[in-house]
Protein backbone atom coordinates (compact mmCIF):
# COMPACT_ATOMS: atom_id res chain seq x y z
CA UNK A 1 0.00 0.00 0.00
CA UNK A 2 1.62 3.17 -1.21
CA UNK A 3 -0.74 5.54 0.57
CA UNK A 4 0.79 7.59 3.33
CA UNK A 5 -0.59 6.41 6.66
CA UNK A 6 -0.30 9.79 8.25
CA UNK A 7 -3.22 10.98 6.19
CA UNK A 8 -5.64 8.45 7.54
CA UNK A 9 -4.02 8.58 10.98
CA UNK A 10 -5.16 12.15 11.55
CA UNK A 11 -8.74 11.00 11.32
CA UNK A 12 -8.37 8.36 13.99
CA UNK A 13 -9.31 8.82 17.62
CA UNK A 14 -6.67 9.19 20.30
CA UNK A 15 -6.05 5.87 22.04
CA UNK A 16 -3.39 7.05 24.43
CA UNK A 17 -3.52 10.42 26.14
CA UNK A 18 -0.86 11.72 28.50
CA UNK A 19 -2.00 14.89 30.26
CA UNK A 20 0.51 17.10 32.12
CA UNK A 21 2.29 14.14 33.64
CA UNK A 22 5.18 14.67 36.01
CA UNK A 23 7.20 12.13 37.92
CA UNK A 24 9.93 12.45 40.51
CA UNK A 25 12.24 9.89 42.05
CA UNK A 26 14.09 10.51 45.31
CA UNK A 27 13.46 14.20 45.03
CA UNK A 28 14.78 14.53 41.48
CA UNK A 29 12.28 15.39 38.79
CA UNK A 30 12.51 12.67 36.16
CA UNK A 31 9.63 13.81 33.95
CA UNK A 32 8.22 17.30 33.67
CA UNK A 33 4.90 18.30 32.13
CA UNK A 34 4.59 15.58 29.53
CA UNK A 35 1.69 16.03 27.14
CA UNK A 36 1.16 13.44 24.47
CA UNK A 37 -1.58 12.33 22.14
CA UNK A 38 -1.15 9.04 20.33
CA UNK A 39 -3.69 7.94 17.76
CA UNK A 40 -5.08 4.46 17.41
CA UNK A 41 -2.85 2.34 15.22
CA UNK A 42 -0.02 4.86 15.30
CA UNK A 43 3.60 3.80 15.65
CA UNK A 44 5.20 6.36 17.89
CA UNK A 45 8.95 6.49 18.39
CA UNK A 46 10.13 8.00 21.65
CA UNK A 47 13.65 9.21 21.12
CA UNK A 48 15.90 10.44 23.86
CA UNK A 49 19.29 10.09 25.51
CA UNK A 50 19.75 8.42 28.87
CA UNK A 51 18.30 10.46 31.69
CA UNK A 52 15.39 11.62 29.58
CA UNK A 53 13.00 9.46 31.54
CA UNK A 54 11.74 7.61 28.50
CA UNK A 55 11.72 4.27 30.31
CA UNK A 56 9.90 5.94 33.20
CA UNK A 57 7.30 7.32 30.83
CA UNK A 58 6.71 3.87 29.42
CA UNK A 59 6.34 2.41 32.90
CA UNK A 60 3.81 5.14 33.72
CA UNK A 61 1.76 4.28 30.64
CA UNK A 62 1.94 0.59 31.55
CA UNK A 63 0.73 1.40 35.04
CA UNK A 64 3.76 0.01 36.84
CA UNK A 65 4.39 3.46 38.31
CA UNK A 66 1.95 6.24 39.16
CA UNK A 67 2.54 9.83 38.07
CA UNK A 68 3.09 12.45 40.74
CA UNK A 69 0.94 14.83 38.77
CA UNK A 70 -1.23 14.50 35.70
CA UNK A 71 -3.20 11.66 34.20
CA UNK A 72 -2.82 8.95 31.58
CA UNK A 73 -5.79 7.46 29.78
CA UNK A 74 -5.92 4.42 27.52
CA UNK A 75 -9.02 4.27 25.33
CA UNK A 76 -10.79 6.54 27.77
CA UNK A 77 -9.83 4.56 30.89
CA UNK A 78 -7.53 6.23 33.38
CA UNK A 79 -4.48 4.11 34.11
CA UNK A 80 -4.43 3.28 37.80
CA UNK A 81 -2.42 0.07 37.96
CA UNK A 82 -0.80 -2.48 35.65
CA UNK A 83 -3.34 -5.35 35.63
CA UNK A 84 -2.53 -6.48 32.13
CA UNK A 85 -3.87 -3.68 30.01
CA UNK A 86 -0.78 -3.00 27.88
CA UNK A 87 1.65 -5.47 26.35
CA UNK A 88 5.26 -4.66 27.02
CA UNK A 89 8.63 -5.80 25.73
CA UNK A 90 11.74 -4.96 27.73
CA UNK A 91 15.34 -4.71 26.67
CA UNK A 92 16.60 -7.69 28.64
CA UNK A 93 14.29 -10.36 27.19
CA UNK A 94 12.41 -11.06 30.38
CA UNK A 95 11.11 -14.51 29.62
CA UNK A 96 10.87 -16.83 32.60
CA UNK A 97 13.80 -19.24 32.34
CA UNK A 98 12.12 -22.15 34.12
CA UNK A 99 9.31 -22.32 31.56
CA UNK A 100 9.65 -23.43 27.97
CA UNK A 101 8.61 -21.09 25.16
CA UNK A 102 5.11 -22.48 24.83
CA UNK A 103 4.46 -22.11 28.54
CA UNK A 104 5.83 -18.57 28.55
CA UNK A 105 3.42 -17.57 25.82
CA UNK A 106 0.56 -19.61 27.28
CA UNK A 107 0.88 -17.55 30.43
CA UNK A 108 -0.10 -14.50 28.42
CA UNK A 109 -2.82 -16.36 26.56
CA UNK A 110 -4.27 -17.48 29.86
CA UNK A 111 -4.83 -13.82 30.76
CA UNK A 112 -6.89 -13.16 27.68
CA UNK A 113 -8.76 -16.45 27.47
CA UNK A 114 -8.97 -17.77 31.01
CA UNK A 115 -11.39 -20.56 30.13
CA UNK A 116 -9.27 -22.08 27.38
CA UNK A 117 -8.10 -25.67 27.79
CA UNK A 118 -4.40 -26.53 27.82
CA UNK A 119 -4.10 -28.11 24.34
CA UNK A 120 -5.94 -25.18 22.81
CA UNK A 121 -3.72 -22.70 24.60
CA UNK A 122 -0.71 -24.64 23.37
CA UNK A 123 -1.94 -24.51 19.80
CA UNK A 124 -2.46 -20.77 20.03
CA UNK A 125 1.03 -20.37 21.46
CA UNK A 126 2.42 -22.36 18.52
CA UNK A 127 0.64 -19.95 16.16
CA UNK A 128 2.21 -16.95 17.84
CA UNK A 129 5.63 -18.58 17.66
CA UNK A 130 5.11 -19.19 13.97
CA UNK A 131 4.21 -15.52 13.56
CA UNK A 132 7.68 -14.54 14.72
CA UNK A 133 9.37 -17.23 12.70
CA UNK A 134 10.12 -19.71 15.47
CA UNK A 135 7.61 -22.47 14.76
CA UNK A 136 8.49 -25.89 16.06
CA UNK A 137 10.75 -24.57 18.81
CA UNK A 138 8.05 -24.42 21.42
CA UNK A 139 9.51 -27.04 23.73
CA UNK A 140 12.84 -25.28 24.05
CA UNK A 141 13.86 -23.18 27.03
CA UNK A 142 14.99 -19.54 26.85
CA UNK A 143 18.58 -20.34 27.79
CA UNK A 144 18.82 -22.56 24.71
CA UNK A 145 18.11 -19.63 22.40
CA UNK A 146 20.19 -16.72 21.17
CA UNK A 147 19.38 -13.14 22.20
CA UNK A 148 17.62 -12.38 18.95
CA UNK A 149 15.45 -15.46 19.22
CA UNK A 150 14.56 -14.73 22.83
CA UNK A 151 13.46 -11.25 21.84
CA UNK A 152 11.28 -12.74 19.13
CA UNK A 153 9.58 -14.86 21.77
CA UNK A 154 9.16 -11.77 23.93
CA UNK A 155 7.39 -10.09 21.00
CA UNK A 156 5.24 -13.18 20.46
CA UNK A 157 4.26 -13.12 24.09
CA UNK A 158 3.43 -9.42 23.93
CA UNK A 159 1.22 -10.10 20.93
CA UNK A 160 -0.39 -13.04 22.69
CA UNK A 161 -1.56 -10.69 25.41
CA UNK A 162 -3.87 -9.25 22.83
CA UNK A 163 -3.74 -5.70 24.11
CA UNK A 164 -4.33 -2.89 21.59
CA UNK A 165 -1.31 -1.12 23.09
CA UNK A 166 2.25 -2.37 22.63
CA UNK A 167 4.97 -0.71 24.66
CA UNK A 168 8.59 -1.43 23.79
CA UNK A 169 11.56 -0.27 25.84
CA UNK A 170 14.68 -0.35 23.63
CA UNK A 171 13.86 -3.96 22.76
CA UNK A 172 16.64 -4.32 20.20
CA UNK A 173 19.31 -2.43 22.10
CA UNK A 174 21.20 -5.50 23.24
CA UNK A 175 21.31 -7.14 19.82
CA UNK A 176 23.96 -7.05 17.13
CA UNK A 177 23.21 -4.89 14.05
CA UNK A 178 22.21 -7.80 11.82
CA UNK A 179 19.72 -9.19 14.32
CA UNK A 180 18.49 -5.69 15.01
CA UNK A 181 17.55 -5.04 11.38
CA UNK A 182 15.88 -8.45 11.09
CA UNK A 183 13.80 -7.84 14.18
CA UNK A 184 12.87 -4.30 13.16
CA UNK A 185 11.49 -5.67 9.90
CA UNK A 186 9.72 -8.46 11.76
CA UNK A 187 8.13 -5.94 14.11
CA UNK A 188 6.85 -3.76 11.27
CA UNK A 189 5.62 -6.87 9.44
CA UNK A 190 3.69 -8.15 12.41
CA UNK A 191 2.38 -4.71 13.35
CA UNK A 192 1.10 -3.83 9.90
CA UNK A 193 -0.78 -7.13 9.68
CA UNK A 194 -2.38 -6.85 13.10
CA UNK A 195 -6.09 -6.41 12.99
CA UNK A 196 -7.45 -4.45 14.78
CA UNK A 197 -4.52 -2.04 14.45
CA UNK A 198 -2.15 -1.90 17.39
CA UNK A 199 -0.83 1.34 18.85
CA UNK A 200 2.90 1.08 19.47
CA UNK A 201 5.09 3.26 21.67
CA UNK A 202 8.69 2.41 20.85
CA UNK A 203 11.44 3.81 23.03
CA UNK A 204 14.94 4.07 21.63
CA UNK A 205 18.06 6.17 21.67
CA UNK A 206 18.90 5.25 18.09
CA UNK A 207 17.83 8.01 15.75
CA UNK A 208 17.87 5.89 12.61
CA UNK A 209 15.73 3.25 14.26
CA UNK A 210 13.27 5.87 15.47
CA UNK A 211 12.81 7.38 12.03
CA UNK A 212 12.73 4.06 10.16
CA UNK A 213 10.06 2.54 12.36
CA UNK A 214 7.87 5.43 13.44
CA UNK A 215 4.99 7.42 12.01
CA UNK A 216 6.07 10.16 14.35
CA UNK A 217 9.11 10.78 16.49
CA UNK A 218 8.77 12.51 19.83
CA UNK A 219 12.10 13.78 21.06
CA UNK A 220 12.75 13.93 24.79
CA UNK A 221 15.39 16.05 26.44
CA UNK A 222 17.04 15.13 29.66
CA UNK A 223 17.49 16.43 33.20
CA UNK A 224 14.57 16.67 33.59
CA UNK A 225 12.83 14.65 30.93
CA UNK A 226 10.48 16.73 28.82
CA UNK A 227 9.33 16.87 25.22
CA UNK A 228 11.63 19.01 23.13
CA UNK A 229 10.11 18.40 19.71
CA UNK A 230 7.81 16.27 17.63
CA UNK A 231 8.68 15.33 14.07
CA UNK A 232 6.25 13.66 11.70
CA UNK A 233 7.82 10.99 9.52
CA UNK A 234 5.73 11.20 6.38
CA UNK A 235 7.42 8.41 4.49
CA UNK A 236 4.94 6.05 2.89
CA UNK A 237 4.78 2.42 4.00
CA UNK A 238 5.97 -0.23 3.31
CA UNK A 239 9.40 1.30 3.76
CA UNK A 240 12.38 -0.22 2.02
CA UNK A 241 15.62 0.18 3.88
CA UNK A 242 17.61 0.74 0.70
CA UNK A 243 15.80 3.70 -0.77
CA UNK A 244 14.87 4.98 2.64
CA UNK A 245 18.36 5.45 3.97
CA UNK A 246 19.59 7.19 0.82
CA UNK A 247 16.63 9.56 0.49
CA UNK A 248 17.57 13.21 1.03
CA UNK A 249 14.42 13.71 3.10
CA UNK A 250 15.73 11.17 5.60
CA UNK A 251 18.99 13.05 5.94
CA UNK A 252 17.02 16.24 6.43
CA UNK A 253 14.94 14.71 9.22
CA UNK A 254 18.01 13.32 10.86
CA UNK A 255 19.80 16.64 10.66
CA UNK A 256 16.85 18.43 12.19
CA UNK A 257 16.71 16.00 15.12
CA UNK A 258 20.41 16.35 15.79
CA UNK A 259 19.87 20.08 15.98
CA UNK A 260 17.13 19.66 18.55
CA UNK A 261 19.42 17.47 20.64
CA UNK A 262 22.36 19.78 20.48
CA UNK A 263 20.23 22.76 21.25
CA UNK A 264 18.88 21.01 24.31
CA UNK A 265 22.36 20.00 25.48
CA UNK A 266 23.67 23.53 25.14
CA UNK A 267 20.68 24.97 26.96
CA UNK A 268 21.17 22.55 29.82
CA UNK A 269 24.87 23.23 30.04
CA UNK A 270 24.30 26.96 30.07
CA UNK A 271 21.62 26.71 32.70
CA UNK A 272 23.52 24.46 35.06
CA UNK A 273 27.20 25.13 34.58
CA UNK A 274 27.30 28.62 33.19
CA UNK A 275 29.26 27.65 30.11
CA UNK A 276 28.86 30.42 27.60
CA UNK A 277 28.20 29.25 24.08
CA UNK A 278 28.30 32.66 22.44
CA UNK A 279 31.54 33.95 23.90
CA UNK A 280 35.10 32.68 24.12
CA UNK A 281 35.50 29.24 25.51
CA UNK A 282 33.16 26.34 24.64
Amino acid sequence: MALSRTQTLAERPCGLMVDSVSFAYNGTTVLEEINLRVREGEFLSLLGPSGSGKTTLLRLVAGIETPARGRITLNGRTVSGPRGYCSMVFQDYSLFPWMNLLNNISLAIGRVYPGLKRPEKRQLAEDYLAMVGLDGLGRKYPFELSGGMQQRVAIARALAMGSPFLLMDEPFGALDPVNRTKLQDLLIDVWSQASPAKTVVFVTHDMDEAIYLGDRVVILGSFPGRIIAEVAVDFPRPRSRQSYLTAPRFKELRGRMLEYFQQDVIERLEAVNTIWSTREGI
Partner: protein
Amino acid sequence: MRLIDKVRKICWGREGWIFILALVGLWQAAGELMSQKDRYLFPSLAVSAKALWLSLPELFQGTVSSMFILIPGYLAAVVMGVVWGILVGTTDWLQRAFTPFARVAAPIPPTIYIPYAIALMATFRLSAIFVVFIGAFWPIFLNTAAGAVAVPGRYRDDAHILGLSRFEYRWRIVFPSALPHSFSGMAVGLALAYILLTVAELFGANAGLGRFVQYYADFADYPRMVAGIIYTGLITFLSMKALEKIRERILFWVR
Protein backbone atom coordinates in the same frame (compact mmCIF):
# COMPACT_ATOMS: atom_id res chain seq x y z
CA MET B 1 59.39 -40.18 28.84
CA ARG B 2 61.20 -39.66 32.10
CA LEU B 3 59.95 -41.49 35.14
CA ILE B 4 58.79 -38.31 36.88
CA ASP B 5 56.71 -37.37 33.83
CA LYS B 6 55.16 -40.82 33.72
CA VAL B 7 54.20 -40.56 37.37
CA ARG B 8 52.79 -37.07 36.81
CA LYS B 9 50.68 -38.28 33.93
CA ILE B 10 49.15 -41.07 35.99
CA CYS B 11 48.49 -38.80 38.98
CA TRP B 12 46.87 -35.97 37.06
CA GLY B 13 43.18 -35.71 38.00
CA ARG B 14 43.47 -38.46 40.57
CA GLU B 15 45.19 -36.43 43.29
CA GLY B 16 42.07 -36.69 45.47
CA TRP B 17 42.12 -40.48 45.49
CA ILE B 18 45.84 -40.51 46.06
CA PHE B 19 45.43 -38.28 49.12
CA ILE B 20 42.76 -40.53 50.61
CA LEU B 21 44.88 -43.60 49.93
CA ALA B 22 47.84 -41.90 51.60
CA LEU B 23 45.73 -41.17 54.71
CA VAL B 24 44.52 -44.77 54.85
CA GLY B 25 48.09 -45.99 54.45
CA LEU B 26 49.24 -43.69 57.26
CA TRP B 27 46.51 -45.02 59.51
CA GLN B 28 47.52 -48.62 58.95
CA ALA B 29 51.20 -47.78 59.43
CA ALA B 30 50.43 -45.91 62.66
CA GLY B 31 48.48 -48.92 63.87
CA GLU B 32 51.47 -51.17 63.28
CA LEU B 33 53.91 -48.85 65.00
CA MET B 34 51.89 -48.08 68.13
CA SER B 35 52.46 -49.66 71.56
CA GLN B 36 50.01 -52.24 72.87
CA LYS B 37 48.48 -49.76 75.29
CA ASP B 38 47.88 -47.09 72.62
CA ARG B 39 46.60 -49.65 70.20
CA TYR B 40 43.69 -50.15 72.55
CA LEU B 41 42.61 -46.51 72.25
CA PHE B 42 43.43 -46.01 68.56
CA PRO B 43 42.39 -49.15 66.68
CA SER B 44 44.25 -49.79 63.45
CA LEU B 45 42.62 -49.81 60.08
CA ALA B 46 42.41 -53.58 59.91
CA VAL B 47 40.75 -53.90 63.32
CA SER B 48 38.26 -51.11 62.60
CA ALA B 49 37.41 -52.55 59.22
CA LYS B 50 36.69 -55.91 60.84
CA ALA B 51 34.51 -54.24 63.48
CA LEU B 52 32.66 -52.36 60.75
CA TRP B 53 32.01 -55.53 58.83
CA LEU B 54 30.73 -57.32 61.93
CA SER B 55 28.49 -54.43 62.96
CA LEU B 56 26.84 -53.90 59.60
CA PRO B 57 23.50 -55.47 60.49
CA GLU B 58 23.27 -53.42 63.67
CA LEU B 59 24.38 -50.28 61.88
CA PHE B 60 21.79 -50.83 59.22
CA GLN B 61 19.06 -51.15 61.81
CA GLY B 62 20.37 -47.99 63.42
CA THR B 63 20.18 -46.18 60.11
CA VAL B 64 16.56 -47.14 59.68
CA SER B 65 15.75 -45.93 63.17
CA SER B 66 17.60 -42.66 62.59
CA MET B 67 15.81 -42.12 59.32
CA PHE B 68 12.49 -42.32 61.12
CA ILE B 69 13.60 -39.19 62.95
CA LEU B 70 15.55 -37.41 60.24
CA ILE B 71 13.13 -37.70 57.35
CA PRO B 72 9.98 -36.41 59.04
CA GLY B 73 11.87 -33.59 60.77
CA TYR B 74 13.80 -32.52 57.68
CA LEU B 75 10.89 -32.74 55.24
CA ALA B 76 8.68 -30.76 57.59
CA ALA B 77 11.41 -28.12 57.80
CA VAL B 78 11.68 -28.00 53.99
CA VAL B 79 7.97 -27.57 53.42
CA MET B 80 7.38 -25.06 56.19
CA GLY B 81 10.64 -23.22 55.59
CA VAL B 82 9.98 -22.70 51.89
CA VAL B 83 6.31 -21.78 52.27
CA TRP B 84 6.89 -19.42 55.14
CA GLY B 85 9.99 -17.99 53.46
CA ILE B 86 8.06 -17.13 50.31
CA LEU B 87 5.17 -15.63 52.25
CA VAL B 88 7.40 -13.47 54.44
CA GLY B 89 9.59 -12.47 51.50
CA THR B 90 6.65 -11.23 49.46
CA THR B 91 4.51 -9.57 52.09
CA ASP B 92 5.80 -6.31 53.50
CA TRP B 93 3.90 -6.22 56.77
CA LEU B 94 4.70 -9.86 57.47
CA GLN B 95 8.35 -9.14 56.92
CA ARG B 96 8.27 -6.23 59.33
CA ALA B 97 6.41 -8.24 61.94
CA PHE B 98 8.45 -11.42 61.77
CA THR B 99 12.02 -10.20 61.21
CA PRO B 100 12.88 -9.03 64.75
CA PHE B 101 11.71 -12.35 66.18
CA ALA B 102 13.64 -14.29 63.53
CA ARG B 103 16.80 -12.35 64.33
CA VAL B 104 16.64 -13.48 67.94
CA ALA B 105 15.27 -16.99 67.53
CA ALA B 106 17.28 -18.25 64.56
CA PRO B 107 20.75 -18.13 66.11
CA ILE B 108 19.72 -20.14 69.19
CA PRO B 109 21.68 -23.41 68.95
CA PRO B 110 19.00 -26.10 68.66
CA THR B 111 21.06 -28.44 70.85
CA ILE B 112 19.94 -26.36 73.83
CA TYR B 113 16.36 -27.44 73.23
CA ILE B 114 17.17 -31.13 73.52
CA PRO B 115 16.77 -31.70 77.27
CA TYR B 116 13.59 -29.64 77.41
CA ALA B 117 12.15 -31.29 74.32
CA ILE B 118 12.85 -34.73 75.77
CA ALA B 119 11.12 -33.78 79.01
CA LEU B 120 8.17 -32.19 77.24
CA MET B 121 7.31 -34.58 74.44
CA ALA B 122 5.54 -37.89 74.74
CA THR B 123 8.21 -40.01 73.09
CA PHE B 124 11.91 -39.58 72.48
CA ARG B 125 11.34 -39.86 68.77
CA LEU B 126 8.96 -36.90 68.78
CA SER B 127 11.42 -34.72 70.67
CA ALA B 128 14.22 -35.65 68.30
CA ILE B 129 12.04 -34.89 65.28
CA PHE B 130 11.22 -31.55 66.82
CA VAL B 131 14.86 -30.64 67.38
CA VAL B 132 15.85 -31.72 63.86
CA PHE B 133 12.98 -29.67 62.51
CA ILE B 134 14.03 -26.51 64.35
CA GLY B 135 17.63 -26.91 63.23
CA ALA B 136 16.80 -27.34 59.56
CA PHE B 137 13.92 -24.88 59.46
CA TRP B 138 15.81 -21.62 60.10
CA PRO B 139 18.46 -21.86 57.36
CA ILE B 140 15.85 -22.99 54.84
CA PHE B 141 13.46 -20.22 55.83
CA LEU B 142 16.07 -17.46 55.92
CA ASN B 143 17.57 -18.39 52.56
CA THR B 144 14.18 -18.76 50.90
CA ALA B 145 13.04 -15.39 52.24
CA ALA B 146 16.23 -13.79 50.96
CA GLY B 147 15.61 -15.41 47.58
CA ALA B 148 12.05 -14.14 47.52
CA VAL B 149 13.20 -10.61 48.27
CA ALA B 150 15.86 -10.85 45.58
CA VAL B 151 13.47 -11.66 42.74
CA PRO B 152 14.73 -9.59 39.79
CA GLY B 153 12.70 -6.47 39.13
CA ARG B 154 12.02 -7.44 35.55
CA TYR B 155 10.18 -10.59 36.65
CA ARG B 156 8.06 -8.46 38.93
CA ASP B 157 7.33 -6.02 36.11
CA ASP B 158 6.46 -8.89 33.80
CA ALA B 159 4.07 -10.33 36.35
CA HIS B 160 2.50 -6.89 36.74
CA ILE B 161 2.05 -6.49 33.01
CA LEU B 162 0.58 -9.96 32.71
CA GLY B 163 -1.79 -9.15 35.53
CA LEU B 164 -1.00 -12.25 37.59
CA SER B 165 -2.80 -12.71 40.87
CA ARG B 166 -0.81 -12.61 44.11
CA PHE B 167 -0.99 -16.38 44.44
CA GLU B 168 0.05 -17.01 40.84
CA TYR B 169 2.90 -14.55 41.20
CA ARG B 170 4.18 -16.34 44.30
CA TRP B 171 3.73 -19.84 42.89
CA ARG B 172 4.90 -19.37 39.29
CA ILE B 173 7.46 -16.60 39.64
CA VAL B 174 8.78 -16.12 43.18
CA PHE B 175 9.01 -19.81 44.09
CA PRO B 176 11.10 -20.87 41.03
CA SER B 177 13.17 -17.72 41.22
CA ALA B 178 14.02 -18.31 44.88
CA LEU B 179 14.68 -22.05 44.51
CA PRO B 180 18.46 -21.73 44.10
CA HIS B 181 18.54 -19.85 47.41
CA SER B 182 16.25 -22.42 49.00
CA PHE B 183 18.57 -25.23 47.98
CA SER B 184 21.52 -23.52 49.63
CA GLY B 185 19.48 -23.35 52.78
CA MET B 186 18.48 -27.00 52.38
CA ALA B 187 22.11 -28.11 52.16
CA VAL B 188 22.98 -26.27 55.36
CA GLY B 189 19.78 -27.56 56.96
CA LEU B 190 20.64 -31.15 56.08
CA ALA B 191 24.08 -30.90 57.65
CA LEU B 192 22.56 -29.39 60.79
CA ALA B 193 19.88 -32.06 60.84
CA TYR B 194 22.48 -34.82 60.98
CA ILE B 195 24.40 -33.08 63.73
CA LEU B 196 21.28 -32.62 65.83
CA LEU B 197 20.09 -36.14 65.11
CA THR B 198 23.26 -37.76 66.38
CA VAL B 199 23.49 -35.45 69.41
CA ALA B 200 19.91 -36.15 70.37
CA GLU B 201 20.51 -39.88 70.02
CA LEU B 202 23.59 -39.65 72.20
CA PHE B 203 21.32 -38.25 74.87
CA GLY B 204 18.39 -40.52 75.03
CA ALA B 205 17.74 -42.95 72.24
CA ASN B 206 17.68 -46.72 72.39
CA ALA B 207 18.45 -47.19 68.74
CA GLY B 208 20.03 -45.21 65.93
CA LEU B 209 23.46 -44.14 64.74
CA GLY B 210 24.30 -41.78 67.58
CA ARG B 211 23.10 -44.40 70.02
CA PHE B 212 25.42 -46.97 68.43
CA VAL B 213 28.50 -44.87 69.07
CA GLN B 214 27.45 -43.96 72.62
CA TYR B 215 26.60 -47.57 73.51
CA TYR B 216 29.97 -48.88 72.50
CA ALA B 217 31.69 -45.93 74.20
CA ASP B 218 30.07 -47.10 77.42
CA PHE B 219 31.67 -50.51 76.81
CA ALA B 220 34.98 -48.89 75.73
CA ASP B 221 34.70 -50.86 72.47
CA TYR B 222 36.78 -48.46 70.43
CA PRO B 223 36.94 -50.43 67.18
CA ARG B 224 33.17 -50.44 67.04
CA MET B 225 33.08 -46.73 67.88
CA VAL B 226 35.45 -45.92 65.05
CA ALA B 227 33.41 -48.14 62.76
CA GLY B 228 30.27 -46.26 63.77
CA ILE B 229 31.91 -42.91 63.07
CA ILE B 230 33.08 -43.98 59.62
CA TYR B 231 29.68 -45.42 58.79
CA THR B 232 27.81 -42.31 59.93
CA GLY B 233 30.14 -40.17 57.87
CA LEU B 234 29.38 -42.28 54.85
CA ILE B 235 25.62 -41.97 55.34
CA THR B 236 25.87 -38.20 55.70
CA PHE B 237 28.02 -37.96 52.60
CA LEU B 238 25.55 -40.00 50.57
CA SER B 239 22.66 -37.83 51.76
CA MET B 240 24.38 -34.62 50.73
CA LYS B 241 25.22 -36.18 47.37
CA ALA B 242 21.58 -37.16 46.91
CA LEU B 243 20.47 -33.61 47.67
CA GLU B 244 22.97 -32.34 45.11
CA LYS B 245 21.62 -34.67 42.45
CA ILE B 246 18.06 -33.58 43.18
CA ARG B 247 19.13 -29.97 42.95
CA GLU B 248 20.74 -30.54 39.55
CA ARG B 249 17.61 -32.10 38.17
CA ILE B 250 15.22 -29.47 39.48
CA LEU B 251 17.32 -26.37 38.78
CA PHE B 252 17.96 -27.26 35.16
CA TRP B 253 17.83 -23.65 34.05
CA VAL B 254 20.51 -22.34 36.40
CA ARG B 255 23.85 -22.15 34.68
